[in-house]
């Protein structure tokens, strides 16, 4: 009981803290890749604090509802991850958050929000099945959906699930809103869509979308860590390497359209998943 309480608190605290730091590092790294110096490490936190202190304005009260549900769902998903609960259930709850963010954007009539929200739904459509298949792969190898069991598996999952790890990489790119998949919104304003999905979120609501996003980032990096869970060094190395590659891809590729995203991600993702899953079935 005490253990659970500690894990819940850790989950709630680590999410924003680690997520914010990752975001800060990301910005510095991206700046260096583009021959800039970049902001200080703590900049994302400064941003959130500043947004929080702005005057409260709203285009639609239901946007407030949606953004709170988004943060609630993403934080519950991360807490369940720290409680080492059921992986599939965690994905479902994570999806709840993603859907609420899009519904919140749909509740504004601004065409920028609307189009952004629809693109976000298409992004969910692209990665959600793949995440489920990655989970299935993990289950076939370890015989369990419970994270507790997966962390105690005595062999790095990467050895048996290399292609599924690549698939997870795709979903990470989409979830982190990195090029070429930063369709719905991205860190910098879009040429054609302003801030897309987030256009009409403002002040503390915008700050909350940022915090919710941090929870999501930590959850996804946690998923990556499952692939080399035999020791701490392996876990850290795999997470750091994955993130570096994601940032690199972000910086060398251009944004593409949803048609391409859906086609490419489903075709590549499903093929890779199927091959990897068939290996697991036959072994």
């Amino acid at each position, binding site marked *: 009981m005490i253990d659970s309480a500690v894990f819940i608190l850790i989950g709630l605290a680590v999410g924003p803290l680690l997520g914010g730091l990752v975001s800060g590092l990301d910005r510095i790294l991206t700046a260096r890749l583009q021959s800039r110096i970049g902001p200080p490490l703590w900049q994302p936190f400064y941003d959130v604090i500043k947004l929080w202190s702005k005057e409260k304005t709203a285009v639609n009260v239901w946007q407030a509802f949606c953004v709170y*549900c988004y943060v*609630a769902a993403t934080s519950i998903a991360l807490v369940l991850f720290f409680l080492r609960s059921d992986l599939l259930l965690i994905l479902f709850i994570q999806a709840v958050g993603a*859907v609420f963010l899009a519904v919140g954007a749909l509740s504004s009539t601004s065409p920028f929000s609307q189009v952004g929200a629809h693109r976000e739904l298409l992004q969910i459509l692209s990665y959600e099945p793949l995440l489920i298949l990655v989970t299935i792969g993990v289950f076939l190898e370890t015989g369990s959906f419970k994270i507790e069991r997966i962390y105690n598996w005595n062999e790095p999952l990467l050895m048996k699930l290399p292609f599924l790890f690549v698939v997870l990489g795709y979903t990470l790119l989409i979830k982190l809103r990195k090029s070429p998949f930063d369709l719905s919104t991205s860190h910098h304003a879009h040429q054609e869509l*302003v801030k897309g999905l987030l256009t009409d979120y403002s002040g503390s609501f915008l700050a909350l979308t940022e915090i919710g996003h941090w929870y999501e980032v930590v959850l996804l990096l946690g998923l990556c860590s499952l692939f080399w869970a035999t020791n701490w060094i392996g876990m850290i190395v795999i997470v750091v390497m994955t993130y570096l590659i994601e940032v690199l891809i972000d910086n060398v590729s251009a944004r593409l359209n949803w048609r391409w995203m859906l086609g490419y991600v489903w075709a590549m993702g499903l093929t890779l998943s199927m091959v990897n899953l068939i290996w697991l079935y036959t072994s």
Partner: protein
Amino acid sequence: MVEAMPTVELISTLLIILPFLAAIACYLIRGSGIRSIVVLTTGGVLITSAVLLIALTPFSLSPQPFRGVSIHVMVQTLDFLLLLIVMYFGFKNRHNAIKGLAFFQIIFLLYFEFFLFKDKQDTSTLYCDHLTLVMVLIVSIVGALICFQAIPYMKSHEEHLRLKKTRQDRFFFVMMLFLGAMNGLVLSNDMLIFYFFFELTTLCSFLLIAHDGTKQALKSAVRALWMNSLGGAAFIVALVGIYRETGTLELQRIILSGDIGAGVFLLSLALLCFAAFIKSAQFPFQSWLLGAMVAPTPVSALLHSSTMVNVGVYLVLRLAPAINGTFLSQCVALFGAFTFLSAAALAVGQSNGKKVLAYSTISNLGLIFACAGLNTPESIVAGMLLLVFHPIIKALLFLCVGAIEQHIASRDIEDMRGLYADMPLTALMTVMGVIMMIMPPFGILLGKWMAIEAAARNLYVIIMVALGSALTVMYWARWAGTLMSDPFAGRFKPERQPFLTWEALGSLCAGAGLLSTAAPWLYTHMIVPTLSRAYPPPYTTQNGILENPYGVFAVFPLSLVAALGFVVAIWAVKKAARARVVRPYLSGVQTAESGVFTGPMNQLVKAEARNYYLSSIFGEKKLTTWINLGAGVLLTLMVGGTL
């Protein structure tokens, strides 16, 4: 097992016979007030009887001959009568398929009754276990609520059509008849009686689709009739096959006969599955359900989402133990998953709200078929959970769309943009329905979670289910967002609706929510008792947490946290209502009017956005042919594979 007690007989009679009497009363009574009272009373009695049935389950019953005429002979006579009525409609509408299929069924029935059947006295006519009970509860409670809502609905429906003479007598006659037929169907253990009620629901469906009498309604009704007659034909052939092989028509004995090796027996089961697929409007027979959407909304809610189409999945879930481990079972799983995926894809391409609901129904029923076909303890539990939750939530959504349609005179999702400003409570309940369709910790997602974990070892099924789930999220989320779109509304003021409408919507919405929280109870008290004969109970329940060796779903804790989150979010709404109202960003000089900005040359420009329906990918024109083809191949595989 409770032996045939007077109470059991009384309750069964009330559940099956009373609606028939009420139907006749509805037809004869001219005054709408008295008719409403008859409907309300019947509904009340049905609900009470169904609840009382909980304490009496399980039981089996063989009613004594009534005035010297045995039940079998009565049903036999009614069967022929029914087929003759179907044939009459075939002639009236000059439809050769209906005529031919009715003739075919009569021939087979004659052959069966006079050359094959030997009357044995030891058959139990009615049988009720917890699966039956669940179905009776759904039919009686959801069915009654829908009939209640139909009273104000049909009143304004007829006002809208400007009818000179009311046709509500006919309408409620068929609705009541249908409730009795459904209860009879799920309670019957004798397959011949099952078959009679199966055909009776087909006939009711035909009459109700044709109710408005327009050209399109008649066309759709005829289509529904011939397709379901095909199902009936497959059913009667299957009965002949089963009787020849096993010498019994008792459902419970057929399930436990276990003689799977025999080709004819398995082929008969495959034909029963085929009949079930048609009843549940699976591809390539989806067109009858889509056409049925022309009927008044209570009909869509009652027959075409929550009860009649459930007969198919109920039958296959019943037969699941008999086909366990066969190629047929695998085919059912594959076919179900295929339907789940393709119906979800077609729903994405639709902007017509009722069509989205229809495709979603087909899709969810496909998922239940997939669960039955996977045939593991987990998947069967998943199938039963979906069987419970889907009808309740779908009925809610249909009734909401009905109320919306009467208000805005459109069923197009685009026209529902910003409906919250106009009909706040109905819009909110629709959104609640959507949330319960796609989000944990609600019942449907619990079922889906079990289904996915159970399907993990079947590559094709799991891929189709994973893709289908994502598509499902897409079309529901889009709809919910559209309803809440636009005007800033700080104050909540429910719109005016008849009491019976609020009562039906409110009960369904609250019922689905509470039942979701009570899912662990539902599992131990309703589902496990049904399972025990063929499957070991797969989950343990402790403190409201469902767990098996490889997965865990904490229903109570999650419901609690979700409720807490909901309260916080509502508090946030209250707070946001005091915030400064700003206009959505339009990339131009804002004006006082929402959605309009001052553009170049001081001209006012209206900014507008519409939903993505992706019809270039998910449109009916693009996909339907290929999906029908795929379904046809799978069906051929299924039936042919048993030979």
